[in-house]
């Protein structure tokens, strides 16, 4: 079937996009505000149409390890959860980064720490881009700001994950997950056959033909000399990703005197702030990082020569602000404005913070 325009929640869009992309397996566990993903998949029963497996695992830990198994066979495997569940999955994510396995993880963030609240938050930024699990690894991180991007990033996430043999994450939150919006869903792609997987993923463990040695998928290497070489290979791969896969959106930056930096739902709120500020004659622009790792550091550094100050707006106590400060390296003042624990900032709140912290009115 062809493309289709529909009105749905961000979470539902992820489920629809996964089936249409030809995902082989979904392994999840319910948690608010993410449950609509697994609910929609169960309702659509793709195992009867595309043959996609949809399974509610016994726990988040089980789900991520099922993804590990699927990915080791070169399959498109994915899991989704919200903040507390993603914490449980960190061990598996680190193992997959160490074993160089591609997969897609969706984190529909809620306020923490601990069980916290079920309202939206962006407080898992550090967990996602600075590690989360153990070891020197990086997660390709995509931050959608609309239901359309929730759908689009399923395909992009899998494409990047398989291109670099690395886990990818869609880092979104309760606002985008629960919000209903128009979305253009892509057409259906058939799932890949075993032969196609063998061709595309020569590393996959799909049975050993006589022509080659066994494929071994593991993150374990007891010889430190070899383990250092593995790490150097990962780091070289990460440098290539940083060089080629930075994605961002620039909004009204050309004549901006002040710059907002925000991702996901916070960037949606800032759109209104920009409008309000410009009505008052304050020229404000915004850089919206779409990939949180690799981070658009060079772009922000470029604007450091143009603007008088930058304000990061986040649904947390100040996390991405550290990366923005590293990027501009002291050239301009960088301040942070955020609300915590599931409270969403308002456009006027952002404008007041901009005036108070950066413009010093």
């Amino acid at each position: 079937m062809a493309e289709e325009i529909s009105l749905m929640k961000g979470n539902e869009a992820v489920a629809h996009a996964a089936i249409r992309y030809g995902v082989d397996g979904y392994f999840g566990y319910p948690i608010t505000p993410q449950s609509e993903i697994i609910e929609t998949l169960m309702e659509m029963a793709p195992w009867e149409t595309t043959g996609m497996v949809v399974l509610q695992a016994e726990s988040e830990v089980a789900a991520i390890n099922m993804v590990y198994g699927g990915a080791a066979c070169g399959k498109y495997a994915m899991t989704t959860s919200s903040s507390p569940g993603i914490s449980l999955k960190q061990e598996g994510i680190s193992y997959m980064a160490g074993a160089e396995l591609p997969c897609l993880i969706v984190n529909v963030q809620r306020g923490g720490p601990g069980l916290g609240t079920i309202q939206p938050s962006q407080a898992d930024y550090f967990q996602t881009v600075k590690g989360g699990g153990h070891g020197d690894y990086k997660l390709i991180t995509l931050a959608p700001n609309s239901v359309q991007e929730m759908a689009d990033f399923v395909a992009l996430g899998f494409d990047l994950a398989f291109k670099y043999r690395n886990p990818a994450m869609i880092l979104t939150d309760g606002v985008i997950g629960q919000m209903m919006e128009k979305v253009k869903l892509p057409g259906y792609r058939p799932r890949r056959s075993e032969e196609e997987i063998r061709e595309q993923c020569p590393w996959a463990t799909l049975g050993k033909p006589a022509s080659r040695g066994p494929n071994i998928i593991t993150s374990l290497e007891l010889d430190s000399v070899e383990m250092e070489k593995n790490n150097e290979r990962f780091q070289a791969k990460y440098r290539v990703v940083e060089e080629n896969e930075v994605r961002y959106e620039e909004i009204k930056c050309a004549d901006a005197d002040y710059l907002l930096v925000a991702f996901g739902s916070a960037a949606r709120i800032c759109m209104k702030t920009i409008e309000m500020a410009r009505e008052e004659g304050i020229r404000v622009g915004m850089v919206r990082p779409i990939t949180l790792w690799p981070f658009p550091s060079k772009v922000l550094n470029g604007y450091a020569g143009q603007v008088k100050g930058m304000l990061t707006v986040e649904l947390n106590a100040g996390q991405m602000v550290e990366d923005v400060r590293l990027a501009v390296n002291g050239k301009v003042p960088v301040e942070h404005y955020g609300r915590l624990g599931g409270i969403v900032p308002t456009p006027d709140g952002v404008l007041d913070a901009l005036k108070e912290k950066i413009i010093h009115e």
Partner: protein
Amino acid sequence: MAKIKGYVEVNTARCKGCDLCVVSCPTDVLELQPREVNDRGYHFVYMKHPDECIGCANCGYVCPEGCLTVYRMKV
């Protein structure tokens, strides 16, 4: 002219407690449940002052989940 009395039926399972209907109500009929939650954990909306409802259906128009049904009755 006959007076119109309204009633708001809430699909509590689908309500995500976004508060839009509460803000949109001109007669302050609606409120989010202060203690009870639905099976997703959201404080769902309920008619705190049912006698004040004029059946204007503002709440129904703004509900992003389509979980409010408004009835009007002439009294």
